[in-house]
């Protein structure tokens, strides 16, 4: 009897062990994960990527420089998994209605810091200031966007609608801070540069975005931006310059999303429809980079579905706030890559458009007005099957 029991136990122990292999959780397929480096980085580059990843994932505390005024405590709080953000970490900006600049800089503008460390009071929007809400965008594939030349962007612009397709497209000409490195072959106009990052395309490069995110989002001052938000005085840097360099490298070398189900006939059909109804006037499928010292980014074709230009999106999307030379109703075409993976960083739901107001891809299309209104009409006129194919295509990106 006792022997039997021992044997029985041994038997189960063995079964447990054999099934072990299957109870080790495996990774999701690569194409379903946004994070990860571009294929083909050198060993040195992989190391730099990892350092940047670490800096991007760092949670700040009062001790390490958070605040006193801030919005969140780390980059990943808003850019979870390098994907689109969630309304709980939304950013509010206020105080600028035209290209003449922000008139509320003395009242806490341009960004509202709606949180503070213990013992401090957060900001409130000054009365009379119009504001917009911005949801964190996807931050993968940014290296490709960074190394597109100014000439390439300008070639896509069509300020007077010379080609008569009803869509213009203009760059955001803006002044730039002294710490950014001006691109080779940069095109200027009246001392202003072509900017490309941010929802209003008012930011010149990734470094500028990192530095302002550190100060405006986290309340962390750096050598590049040493003015504390509350005291308006210069303070000691709270983050090393090395970490900013590392983050810059990390964001440049995060891979572009891998499209899924590209052989599915419905996806192919949807892709053709996307061309046919000219969503591609703004959401340009293919762009090219110029020279880059990071060889995997140099002279490459890539598929972001954006033209990095500003477009009149109509009154529905006009929040009465702007940056740089953009009008309040103008927004930069957002890349559509990674759209199908949005829900896996947004807690299972869709929050699309600049402020997350659209809860489905279709709803995002409904909001297209201004010079995109004709494309929305074309979409609405499609038979249901075609609509579904188009949506399926967008989900495959």
């Amino acid at each position, binding site marked *: 009897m006792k022997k039997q029991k021992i044997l029985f136990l041994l038997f189960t122990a063995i079964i*447990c062990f054999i*099934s072990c292999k299957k109870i080790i959780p495996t990774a999701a397929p690569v194409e379903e994960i946004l994070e990860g480096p571009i294929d083909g980085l050198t060993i040195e580059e992989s190391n730099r990527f990892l350092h940047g990843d670490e800096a991007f994932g760092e949670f700040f505390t009062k001790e390490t420089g958070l605040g006193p005024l801030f919005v969140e405590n780390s980059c990943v709080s808003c850019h*979870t998994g390098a994907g689109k953000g969630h309304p709980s970490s939304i950013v509010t900006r206020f105080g600028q209605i035209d290209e003449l600049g922000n008139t509320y800089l003395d009242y806490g503008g341009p960004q509202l810091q709606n949180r*503070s460390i213990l013992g401090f009071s957060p900001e409130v929007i000054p009365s009379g200031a119009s504001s917009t809400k911005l949801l964190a965008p996807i931050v993968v594939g940014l290296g490709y966007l960074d190394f597109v030349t100014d000439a390439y962007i300008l070639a896509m612009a069509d300020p007077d609608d010379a080609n008569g397709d009803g869509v213009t497209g203009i760059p955001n000409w803006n002044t730039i801070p002294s710490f950014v490195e001006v691109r080779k072959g940069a095109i200027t106009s009246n001392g202003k540069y072509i900017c490309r990052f941010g929802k209003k395309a008012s930011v010149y490069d990734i470094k500028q975005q990192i530095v302002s995110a550190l100060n405006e989002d986290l309340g962390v001052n750096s050598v590049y931006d040493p003015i504390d938000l509350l005291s308006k005085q210069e303070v000691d840097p709270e983050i090393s310059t090395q970490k900013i360099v590392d983050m810059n490298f990390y964001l440049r070398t995060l891979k572009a999303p891998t499209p899924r189900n590209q052989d599915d006939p419905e996806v192919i059909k949807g892709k053709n429809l996307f061309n046919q109804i000219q969503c591609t006037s703004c959401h340009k499928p293919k762009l090219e980079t110029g020279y880059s010292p990071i060889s995997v980014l140099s002279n490459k074709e890539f598929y972001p579905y954006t033209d990095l230009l500003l477009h009149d999106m109509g009154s529905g999307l006009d929040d009465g706030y702007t940056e740089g030379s953009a009008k309040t109703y103008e927004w930069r075409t957002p890349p559509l890559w990674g759209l199908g993976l949005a829900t896996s960083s947004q807690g*299972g739901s869709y929050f699309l458009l600049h402020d997350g107001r659209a809860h489905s891809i279709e709803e995002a299309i409904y909001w297209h007005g201004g010079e995109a209104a004709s494309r929305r009409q074309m979409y609405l006129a499609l038979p249901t099957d075609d609509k579904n194919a188009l949506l399926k295509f967008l989900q495959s990106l």
Partner: protein
Amino acid sequence: MNYKLNLLLIIIIVSSINKVTAQIDSTLLNRIPKDTLKQAMNMDATYNRPFLSIGKTPLAIGGYTEANWQHATSDGVSEGHQFQARRLTLFVASTINKRLKFLSEIEFEDGGKKIAIEFASMDVEFNPLLNFRGGIIMNPIGSFNQNHDGPKWEFTDRPISATQMLPATWSNSGFGLFGKKFKKDWMFGYEFYLSGGFDNSIIDNTENKTFLPEAKKNPERFEEINSGLPMVTGKIAVRNKLAGEIGLSYMGGVYNKFNDDGNIIDIKRRLDVFAIDYNVTIPKVKTTVIAEWAWILIDVPTTYLQNFGSNQHGGFVDIIQPVLSRKMFGWNKATLNLACRLEYVDWNYANFIETNTNIGDHLWSVMPAISFRPTAQTVFRFNYRYQQQTDLLGNPAALTGVFQVGFSTYF
């Protein structure tokens, strides 16, 4: 799924084998029964340990150590093989007088990286119902904090709710009273202490969550209280020989610094922790059940990050079934147990203001185990953990599988 199959098998075995005697009881060890109690309660755990007395001196020393191998995989990514010397704890006790005792406990964790005095207090008895305790005391919240010695447990890992939500081995300078009374099959015990407590770090840390264990990093707490106000800890427990022991405990106070050099710098913010614990060994089948659940309420400023929750809860249930208890490999009273731990922790029990959807940041885990005790003081354990952890936003959960083989022993 496969782990379910395994669990099922384990349950089948457990139910098919009974009437085997074992030597597990909640207090486990009575090598030197210092205490007059025949069957002790959680509150007696500090003295209910094997001690070695040194000659004719009033000193007795003891301790335990634990080490293990581990292989963990999270969503396909693994740290590889890990050999861990988790902790070495030394106790020194001294009976200064029959009714005046001193006990200290020093813990070295992670190969000496962390050293902590977990306990160093003097107990003076006036009456069994009235004892004084002062020094560095262990706050009796839940049962694990009081009764945490490695060799008493069938699992390599301490419960997540006890270490990542409640601060396990949480001690402070303070003093208070405790007492016990027993009558036939019943025992009653109480403890009440005033001590140092938590600080601002519990809502300002790199864990990105309200995290009570963060306060353990503050060595100043043995000198001064962050808020300047004492923390209160109290526990009552009742034990019945058949029905087991149930404990109700509370710990709370103001955690933040609101007054600095006479300047008011914030309002007073409270922290309140409630816990219930239960343990029993069912007489005939010898099945032991150990369970604990705790609730934490914290006043987090509304202008602060939602990531830092103001409401947490979590706990664990251990079920331990001796399946063989007899002479094995030359050990006269060896025991083989099957066990399973179920745990759950929600670090942020609330909804997002913006979307009115649940804030995630929760975890559950199932951990089947086989343990072998050549003697009551030593345990070899084989564990597998399957864990699902959801982030703040409720994105697809991270799945983790962990294998552990290790031992823990008093010495």
